């Protein structure tokens, strides 16, 4: 994985932003702690020195120089290692008492404090230079008093603190960067996996699916949704491919027949009863093809759902009676017993035209496939359910889904007239209305239920 790509990931950028924020907060917090602690330590030293100077100058004022010299000598003696520093000098600057050999060679700072190096000798160790802080005080008579503290330890603590803060921050940044890197890498690898799959799909292999890790995280959910979408697209494409194949196949047959007839008519020359018959058959073929296209367009329109705008309240009894009236004689002519039962008072919101055509298609089929002597019935019952039943050969259970597809016909029916689109339209119309279409066994025969329960219009 390329480092630049990694740095470009949104996860890494997010990690960086968090890190920067965290760093600023951390720095502010630790900085505040440091300055507070260092300040307390400095103030403590300064106050102790100040208090001592005040005490000593008080003693000088009340009890004189000799007393001060003694006190300083005593205190100096208690601190031979020069942790506390005392020096009393005469007006000329010569030391009179204290644990410093001479007046320190340092200019007082703007705040009046002197900082200088002092040689110390802690417990038998070698002498070393340490920093000290002191304040001087001018006594009456020109004598000068210097009181100080060795501050090396304090400075070292402060520097230790600074180091600790620095390291802490550096470590935080490092860990944050590493964390961001690892997290982005994980994220990127999963996104990359999805990208790889989509690229393969775009290259033409629609059977590819995105791997699901089974962790039920958002990436898994994304992958599952994408996979479901892909399956849907694949199914639709497959359906479309089949339909185009079928159209090509189903229209090539009548077209080649049409061509053969026209060629024959040309051979016959003009006029004559033979030519006329050929032309009439050709016309019938063309008519059949136009009907096929019309049926395909009807199905496509029903599937597109644009006809929903034409929904109106449809009285099922009227619809049922009208169709029974139209198809009853056709059935009886073929030697079939036709029965209809149209329950009154059932209404649905539907596209009257399409619903009528769908039921007409079912009746067409029932009458076409039932041999003479059989029965065909059209029923509208509460639910509301519209059912068309016959005593024909029926449809084997394994084919009941397939026959709803365009151009699919049972092998046994190939010779019968029809285009294999009748049930497809019924299916599309059922879907358009949100109705349930059920093909069942009528023992013997086919029983088709169109369950309009979800479509029922409110009683008005």
């Amino acid at each position, binding site marked *: 994985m390329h480092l630049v790509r990694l740095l470009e990931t949104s996860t890494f950028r997010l990690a960086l932003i968090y890190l920067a924020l965290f760093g600023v907060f951390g720095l502010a917090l630790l900085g505040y702690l440091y300055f507070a602690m260092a300040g307390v330590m400095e103030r403590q030293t300064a106050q102790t020195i100040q208090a001592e100077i005040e005490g000593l100058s008080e003693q000088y004022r009340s009890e004189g120089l000799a007393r001060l010299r003694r006190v300083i000598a005593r205190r100096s003696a208690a601190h031979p290692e020069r942790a506390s520093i005392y020096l009393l000098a005469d007006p000329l600057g010569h030391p009179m008492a204290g644990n410093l050999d001479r007046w320190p060679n340092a200019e007082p700072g703007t705040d009046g404090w002197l900082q200088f190096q002092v040689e110390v000798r802690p417990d038998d160790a070698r002498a070393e230079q340490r920093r000290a802080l002191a304040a001087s005080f001018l006594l009456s008579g020109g004598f000068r008093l210097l009181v100080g503290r060795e501050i090396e330890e304090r400075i070292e603590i402060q520097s230790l603190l600074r180091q600790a803060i620095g390291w802490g921050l550096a470590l935080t940044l490092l860990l944050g960067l590493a964390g961001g890197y690892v997290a982005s890498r994980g994220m990127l690898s999963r996104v990359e996996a999805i990208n790889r799959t989509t690229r393969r799909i775009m290259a033409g292999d629609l059977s590819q699916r995105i791997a699901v890790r089974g962790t039920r995280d958002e990436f898994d959910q994304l992958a599952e949704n994408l996979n479901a979408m892909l399956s849907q697209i694949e199914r639709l494409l497959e359906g479309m491919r089949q339909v185009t194949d079928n159209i090509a196949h189903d229209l090539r047959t009548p077209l080649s027949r049409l061509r053969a007839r026209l060629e024959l008519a040309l051979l016959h020359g003009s006029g004559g009863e033979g030519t006329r018959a050929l032309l*009439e058959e050709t*016309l019938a073929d063309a*008519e059949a093809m*136009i*009907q096929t296209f*019309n049926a395909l*367009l*009807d199905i496509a*329109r029903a599937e597109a759902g*644009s*006809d929903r*705008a*034409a929904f109106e309240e449809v009285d099922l009894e009227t619809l049922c009676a*009208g169709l029974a*009236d*139209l*198809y009853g*004689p*056709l059935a009886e*002519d073929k030697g079939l017993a036709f029965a209809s039962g149209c329950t009154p008072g059932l209404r649905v919101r539907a*596209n009257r*035209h399409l619903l*009528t*055509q769908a039921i*007409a*298609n079912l009746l*067409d089929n029932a*009458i*076409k496939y039932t041999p003479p002597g059989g029965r065909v019935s059209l029923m509208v019952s509460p639910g509301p359910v519209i059912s068309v039943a016959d005593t024909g050969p029926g449809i084997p259970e394994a084919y009941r889904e397939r026959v709803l597809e365009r151009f699919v016909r049972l092998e046994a029916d190939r010779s019968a*007239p*029809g*285009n294999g689109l*009748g049930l497809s339209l019924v299916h599309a119309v059922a879907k358009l209305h949100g109705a349930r279409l059920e093909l069942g066994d009528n023992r013997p025969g086919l029983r088709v239920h169109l369950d309009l329960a979800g479509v029922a219009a409110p009683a008005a």
Partner: protein
Amino acid sequence: MDMRILVIEDDVGAAEYLAKGLRESGNSVEVATNGRDGLLRAAAEPFDVLIVDRMLPRLDGLSLVQHLRATGHTTPVLFLSALGEVDDRVKGLRSGGDDYLVKPYAFSELLARIESLGRRQSRAPVTTTLKVGDLELDLLTRKVTRGGQVIDLQPREFQLLEALMRHSGQVMTRTMLLEKVWDYHFDPQTNVIDVHISRLRQKIDKGFERQLIHTVRGAGYSLRAPGPAS
């Protein structure tokens, strides 16, 4: 048929084919290839029927007919359209069209509809009895007699006969009958109409020497009086 027909259609090939067919059927035909021209011609000259394509350049078919109706012209209009939804048909008829035919159509279908539209104007206004030869149909009592003999008809058979009688002498296609009698606007996969006609024939023509209901090959049915010519 001898009618003056104006074809307003922008597809020149289709318009010529249509004009040729109509002329061969004995009509005089003029063609306009855009909506504006069509409206001017239809408003200025008397025509028996207008054939109007819905999609026209410069002025669409619906607006053309609306303009025409708004200015008091009642010439019957047959819409031709590639749009076949029921909605489109309803829109066409609402804007003042008298009939609606979806492309691609059979010429015989168009001819039958034109004839039916052209004759509508000249027909006697209100009658309560229809008479063709010795066949009589009373619209009020719903009684049908032939040669004085009462014929018992089912309600739908009555409607079918009424449609045929109203257009006696003209060809009624199966689609026209399905529209007029059942108000269905779809192509049945089987010729259901044939069965109904044959039942009607059984009652009207059986036992009579001369047939009234005739099958017109490749087109439909026609009910006509047995004149000396036929």
